C-alpha cells in the first residue's frame, strides 16, 4: 500500500488553508456521527424525571440507576447473554464451513464455480423479511423454535456467503507455491490447511469472524421472529419495553448504550481491515 503522506504534489502550494478545510470537514462529520450517540449516553445517565421535565445538555444529577436496573434484572441481562450465545455460535459455524469453501474458490476452477459464487452472493441479497415466515415454520416443525441454534443457523443465510467472500479475498493473496511446497514435503491436505495455511491467513479469519459477529449482532427481524422467551435477544427485549405504556426512557437508553459497547470494544482491533472486509476482500 502506498502511503500518501509523502505526497507533495497536491497540497504543498496552499498547505495552510487546505489543511484547515480538511479539519473542518472531518470535525463536522465526526460531530454529526457522535451527537446522537452522545444524546443516548446522556439520557442513560439521567433520571426519568430529569429527562421528561427539563431539557439539559448533560446530566444535572448523575445516576447509574438505569444501568443497575439492567445488570441486576435477569429478564434484561439474559437478553445480552442470549444474543452473545447465538452470535458466537453463528460466527463459529460460518467461519468453519466457509474456510474450505473459500480455499476451493481461491485455488481451483471447478464445474459451476462462477455460478455457485454468484448464487452464494444472492443469499446476501435476500431480504430477511422474505425469510421470516418460512424460517418460523421450518424451525417450528423441527422443534428448534426459541433455541439459540435456530437463530445461529438462520443468520448463516447472510453470514456464510459473506465469510466465503472475505476469506476468498484474503486467500488469493497467499502465493500458491506455499501449497505446492507443502504437498511436496509430504503434508496431507488437512495437516497443511491447519498447520500452515490457517496461520498465514489469520488476519483474514479474524476479519471474517468480526464481520459475522457484527452482522449477527445487529440483526433483529429474524432473531425476533425465531425466539419467544428462552433465546430472546437483547434487541427484542428492548422493543417490547418501548411498546409498554409509559416508556422507561432512562433504562431504554442505558440498554442501547450497552448494545454499542461490544462493537466499540472490538472495532479497535480491526480498524485497518474494516474497509477490506466490507469490500468482500477486494481492496
Amino acid at each position, binding site marked *: 500500500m*502506498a502511503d500518501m503522506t509523502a505526497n507533495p504534489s497536491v497540497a504543498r502550494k496552499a498547505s495552510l488553508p487546505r489543511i484547515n478545510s480538511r479539519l473542518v470537514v472531518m470535525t463536522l462529520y465526526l460531530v454529526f456521527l457522535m451527537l446522537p450517540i452522545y444524546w443516548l449516553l446522556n439520557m442513560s445517565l439521567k433520571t426519568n424525571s430529569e429527562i421528561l421535565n427539563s431539557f439539559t445538555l448533560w446530566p444535572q444529577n448523575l445516576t447509574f440507576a438505569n444501568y443497575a436496573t439492567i445488570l441486576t434484572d435477569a429478564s434484561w441481562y439474559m437478553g445480552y447473554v442470549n444474543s452473545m450465545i447465538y452470535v458466537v455460535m453463528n460466527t463459529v459455524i460460518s467461519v468453519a464451513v466457509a474456510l474450505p469453501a473459500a480455499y476451493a474458490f481461491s485455488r481451483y476452477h471447478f464445474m459451476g464455480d462462477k455460478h455457485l459464487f454468484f448464487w452464494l452472493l444472492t443469499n446476501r441479497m435476500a431480504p*430477511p423479511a422474505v425469510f421470516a415466515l418460512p424460517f418460523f415454520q421450518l424451525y417450528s416443525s423441527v422443534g428448534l423454535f426459541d433455541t439459540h441454534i435456530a437463530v445461529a443457523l438462520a443468520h448463516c443465510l447472510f453470514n456464510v456467503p459473506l465469510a466465503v467472500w472475505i476469506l476468498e479475498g484474503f486467500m488469493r493473496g497467499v502465493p500458491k507455491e506455499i501449497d505446492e511446497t507443502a504437498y511436496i514435503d509430504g503434508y496431507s491436505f488437512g495437516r497443511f490447511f491447519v498447520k500452515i495455511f490457517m496461520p498465514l491467513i489469520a488476519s483474514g479469519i479474524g476479519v471474517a469472524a468480526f464481520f459475522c459477529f457484527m452482522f449477527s449482532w445487529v440483526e433483529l427481524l429474524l432473531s425476533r421472529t425465531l425466539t419467544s422467551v428462552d433465546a430472546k435477544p437483547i434487541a427484542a427485549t428492548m422493543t417490547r419495553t418501548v411498546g409498554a405504556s409509559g416508556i422507561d426512557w432512562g433504562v431504554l437508553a442505558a440498554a442501547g448504550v450497552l448494545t454499542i459497547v461490544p462493537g466499540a470494544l472490538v*472495532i479497535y482491533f480491526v480498524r485497518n481491515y474494516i474497509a477490506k472486509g466490507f*469490500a468482500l476482500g477486494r481492496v
Partner: protein
Amino acid sequence: MQEKTVNHKAWFLVLPVLALVAFSAVIPLMTVVNYSVQDSFGNNQFFWAGLEWFREMLSEERMWNALGRQMAFSAIILAIEVPLGIFVALNMPKSGFWASFCLVVMSLPLLVPWNVVGTIWQIFGRVDIGLLGYTLDALGVNYNYTQDFISAWATLIVMDVWHWTSLVALLAYAGLQSIPDAYYQAAKIDQASRWKVFRYIELPKMMGVLMIAILLRFMDSFMIYTEPFVVTGGGPGNATTFLSIDLVKMALGQFDLGPAAAFSIMYFLVILAISWVFYTVMTNLDKREGK
C-alpha cells in the same frame, strides 16, 4: 490473479457450505414458492391456485405504492451517501493517530444494532426530549416525525445517512490508499488541477470499491426494515411503509400467506435483477484492472 488449476474434487470442499445454505435458504425459499401458487381455507388444506396471487399482487395498488416509496428512498440515500462518502474520504487524514481515530469513530454507527439505531433517532428526533427535535422546534421549524410526512422522510433519510455514509467513506478511503504516489507526481508535472486529479486519477482508481459500496448500499437500503419500523412504524399513514415493512405486515400480521409469498418472490427478483447488473459491472471492472 494467479492461475487456477482445474480440479473438480474441489466440490467436496464446498459441500459443507452447500448443505448449510441449502438448509437455511433453499428449503425456506421453496416454502415461499409453494405458498405463492396455492390457496388455503385454513385447516392446512391447500388448493392449487396457479399464478393467481401473482396476478392479484401485480394489479394491487398497495404493492406498487410500496415499491415506489422503496425506489425513492434507495435513490435518495444513494444520491446523498455516495458523493458525501467520497467527499469525506478525500478529507480524511492519510496516516498516523488521527487516521486511526477517524476510522474507529466512523465505524461506530455501523456496529450499532439496527433497532438501537432506530431507538437513537426516535429519541434524538422527539420534540420534547430529543436534541434534534427540541432544537428544530426552538428554531420554529414545524417538525414532528410521527405526524408530518416530510419530517418522517427527512428523519429516516438523515438516519440512514448517519448510519451508512461511513461505509462508503471507508471503502473510498481504502481505494484512495491504493493509489501510488507516482500518479500524483505525474499529475503535478502535468500541472493538473485538483478537479482533474480527482476525475482522472482518484475516481477511476476508486471505481471498483465504489461499485461494491453502491451494491451493498442498494441491497441493504432495499431491504431496510428495522430502522423505519422502530422510528415511524411505517407511518404517518403509509408514508414510510417500505417493501419489507409491508411484507411483514402482510405475512406475520394478517397471515395472508399466498399474496405475501407472491409478493416475496417478486421482491426478491427485483433485488436480484438490479444486483446482477451491479455485479456484472463490478466483475468486468475487476477484469479490466487485471485483478
